[in-house]
């Protein structure tokens, strides 16, 4: 089957699983990742529920496998811009953004990052903007590929044409190449698996919860970066240099909520919140933790037990979503109606963490447009429960969160299913 070539769009855990399975079935794979490294959302996480093993420990070896597998071609900073049916396959135009670093020369020594005049001045997306990075950087130490890149917007030389270019001076192998231009590649693929993943709901519009206006109100993913050893604090849970003691979690922010246009359940927030509570209890022994919920959806294998252990370890669950979060002299105050006691409670806290729900990845709409894929009412790619990866276009399959919220185990299984359908299509 060596002449068969499949395109996998997206380098998160769904795309990685799909690419590796396809390669093991003898298929040639091209993986497109729009960012500078593969790893997706999962690599941003500190730990995963319910086993609490670290995300990096389970995912980085798979990322390395993608990089080393001779059947997989990895293109980063790359996205499809046109997909046309040609016989049973597809003619695909791919836009590859410049990295401004010659991948064949860069040794990832990091001297350029230290030399960059913009060092510590540009918001770092991988850390949810909680840290600052230089213009030439690697998104995280275990990135795949292990190559630096220059962010064209942040780089003074590229954006304004004026810089002393200290990076060029320190780069031993002369890897920095400002002359790189955007490239358009044209390829033919026999089938496509799309796995663009997800974004998280931006809670700024929920003014009553204070996100973006009150100090100490964070999203779950931001908190995840604070816990992570590759994060801005090296994994110490600290805000403005201080270790907080009181934590308040609010679930279903942007899920099960008509006002935000999302009636659906995001499937992961109950458990990632319980996980956060566990991480805090592990690192801050005297922490006080409250979790506000509507229903606790601990449905997966080992999840109910994990939820129970979280409660037993001293985390308080309150049924009811707070009406508001306000600033006080000592920190924050959460007002919530406890539906079990029927009382209005006021709880002082240092940090409020919003368990924000899942949304289709921002690029999904454009992908659907160029491939004529049908979406559901929320913008997830439309599928059917008996053929969970089949899209409305023959030969294009979907997996992971792109077709609706899933946890990691379900994402992995859905990627396997997409590969099965894809292989069947190729053999028809």
């Amino acid at each position: 089957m060596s002449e068969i070539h499949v395109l996998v769009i997206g380098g998160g855990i769904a795309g990685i699983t799909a690419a590796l399975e396809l390669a093991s079935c003898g298929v040639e794979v091209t993986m497109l990742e729009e960012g500078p490294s593969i790893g997706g959302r999962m690599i941003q996480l500190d730990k995963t529920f319910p086993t609490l093993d670290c995300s990096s420990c389970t995912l980085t070896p798979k990322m390395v496998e993608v990089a080393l597998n001779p059947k997989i071609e990895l293109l980063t900073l790359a996205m499809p811009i046109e997909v046309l049916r040609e016989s049973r396959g597809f003619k695909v135009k791919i836009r590859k953004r410049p990295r401004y670093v010659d991948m064949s020369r860069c040794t990832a020594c990091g001297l350029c990052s230290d030399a960059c005049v913009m060092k510590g001045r540009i918001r770092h997306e991988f850390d949810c903007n909680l840290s600052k990075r230089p213009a030439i950087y690697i998104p995280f130490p275990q990135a795949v590929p292990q190559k630096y890149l220059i962010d064209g917007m942040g780089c003074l030389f590229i954006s304004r044409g004026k810089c002393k270019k200290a990076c060029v001076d320190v780069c031993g192998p002369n890897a920095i190449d400002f002359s790189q231009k955007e490239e358009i590649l044209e390829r033919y693929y026999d089938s496509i698996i799309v796995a663009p993943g997800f974004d998280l709901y931006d809670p700024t519009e929920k003014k009553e919860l204070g996100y973006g206006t009150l100090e100490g109100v964070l999203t779950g993913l931001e908190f995840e970066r604070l816990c992570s050893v590759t994060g801005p604090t090296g994994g110490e849970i600290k805000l403005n240099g201080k270790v907080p003691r009181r934590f308040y979690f609010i679930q279903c922010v942007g899920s099960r909520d008509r006002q935000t246009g999302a009636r659906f359940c995001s499937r992961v927030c109950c458990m990632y919140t319980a996980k956060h509570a566990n991480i805090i209890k592990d690192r801050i022994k005297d922490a006080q933790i409250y979790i506000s919920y509507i229903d606790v959806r601990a449905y997966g294998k080992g999840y109910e037990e994990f939820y129970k252990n979280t409660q037993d370890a001293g985390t308080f669950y309150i049924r009811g979503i707070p009406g508001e979060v306000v600033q006080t002299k000592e920190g924050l105050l959460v007002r919530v109606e406890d539906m079990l006691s029927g009382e209005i409670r006021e709880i002082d806290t240092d940090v409020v963490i919003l368990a924000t729900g899942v949304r289709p990845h921002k690029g999904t709409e454009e992908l659907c447009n160029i491939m004529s894929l049908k979406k559901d009412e929320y913008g997830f790619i439309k599928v059917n429960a008996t053929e969970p990866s089949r899209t409305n276009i023959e030969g294009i399959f979907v997996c992971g969160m792109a077709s609706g919220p899933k946890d990691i185990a379900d994402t992995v299984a859905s990627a396997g299913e997409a590969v099965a359908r894809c292989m069947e299509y190729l053999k028809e």
Partner: protein
Amino acid sequence: MRIGIFICHCGHNIKSTVDIEGLKGYFKGLNNIACVEDYPFMCSEPGQALIKSSIERFGLGRVIIAACTKALHQDMFKNLVRDAGLNPFLLRRVSIREHCSWTGEDIEKNTSKAIRLIRAGIYSSAHYEPLEEKQVEVNKSALILGGGISGMSAAAFLARAGIEVYLVEKEKELGGHVRHLEDVWPVRERGKDIIERMTEELKTLNNVHIFTSSRLVSFGGSFGNYEAVIENSGGEIKVIVGGVIVAIGFTAFDPSIKPELQYGIDKRVITTLEFEEKMHELPIKEGSRVAILHCIGSRDEIIGRPYCSRICCINAIKTGEAIKNRFKDSYVESFYMDVRSHPRGGEEFYEDTQEKGLLFTRANISEIIPEQGGLVLRGEDTLLGMPFEREFDLVVLSIGMSPPKDNQEIAGLLKITLDKDRFFLEAHPKLRPYDTALKGIFIAGTCSGPKDMEESINHGRASAVKLYGLLNLGYAFIEPFVAYVDPKRCSGCRMCEQACVAKAIKFDEGLHIVRVEEAACMGCGLCNATCPSSAIALKGYKDTIIDDEISALTEAV
């Protein structure tokens, strides 16, 4: 001998409770230690590059990786060592995470334990020998146990991919539980129709051999060449298969073990499955009062079912909807702990059904009291904090999933493991959710834990892809840990021959000693333990390796 030690921080996991610098300092400069390195994640690309370059730079003869357990990433590290030009069997993994940093928080004690563990690795690996993996032929055939939706999905994929498939189902017909569902949510189709469509599809594929009313009676061999004996009324059939997918499903929870629910005693108490089957025969009409109880046989530690069964909330909502659709003026009340309508479209279904008039009450139900006029439900409304008693004409129990009945038997035959709830145990709950510890043996669908139909289909096909990936080359490499005989020591007592479960030991009448058939040897070591003259041993696990490992562990540091 030049030894390299590579210490992984594993993010926080090791670094937070082991003094990495202290560890490095202890080993640096000791005899034969050529280098001691550390890195936050040894398994990442820079970590691997560090190991590879050190092997080349220092000409290492042994590589000690002190990190997570050997059960993780072993193939990856072996390939890395091989790529660097060193025999992969000269690699030694030392678990300073599972066996050390995770077990306690005392940094001093952990560090001293880590030193011992690494020393044990050094002492034992000194006796390692370069070994070669054996290439074996692999049969392009698969045994699938269980003909439910998961097993059928797996069979369809494998057969299309050109694998010979033996599909074994203990019931008279294929389809498992789905066949008996009147209304499958969310596709809103009869289960029978879905199953018949899939059965037709399987019948068009001439490399699928379907055995109904059949069961597995014996199983042996190794990856690529497993031997299975299937038994049915026609007798026994022996098949050789490359791999196996276990998809034997679940057993519906039997609520009669909870006598307070009156199930099996009072006919007005039925399960959701029974409701599906005889919806139209039930004594309900306009004005009838029906109660639906969630979490029957789930989230219940007292009866040994602490887990959530994942599908029963949707089943309960579906039941309520069916009654409301037929009898608009019926009174239907659902009693729940948490409503877990998480599947795609589930939350919307839950909301829409509430709008149709289905009532949801968060409650604990303590008992059902049968009265002449109706069934009295006694419980506590957990939102109001008030006890209540309400009368109903019918009670539907939304039952959960219990482990499959044949779990113990299949686990025994295949030598795979059950988890604490007696479902099958997966190799890794996140990234290897359908693999077992045995190569080529997979678990798919609800036999590894509750799942809905979509998830079971995903599992079936995904595990089939994995198996295909292992079989499609037609050959595989197997580990060289087989027994070997020292002919000078062997006295020909043949005790090892009796101990060998794989029947790999043959007696040579002429020389009066035994020899090992390497292809059949499973490397279990039983012969090694039995031999009175230490004449038979396992490659890679010689006595000197074990002895010196123990010495190092017990020696004063």
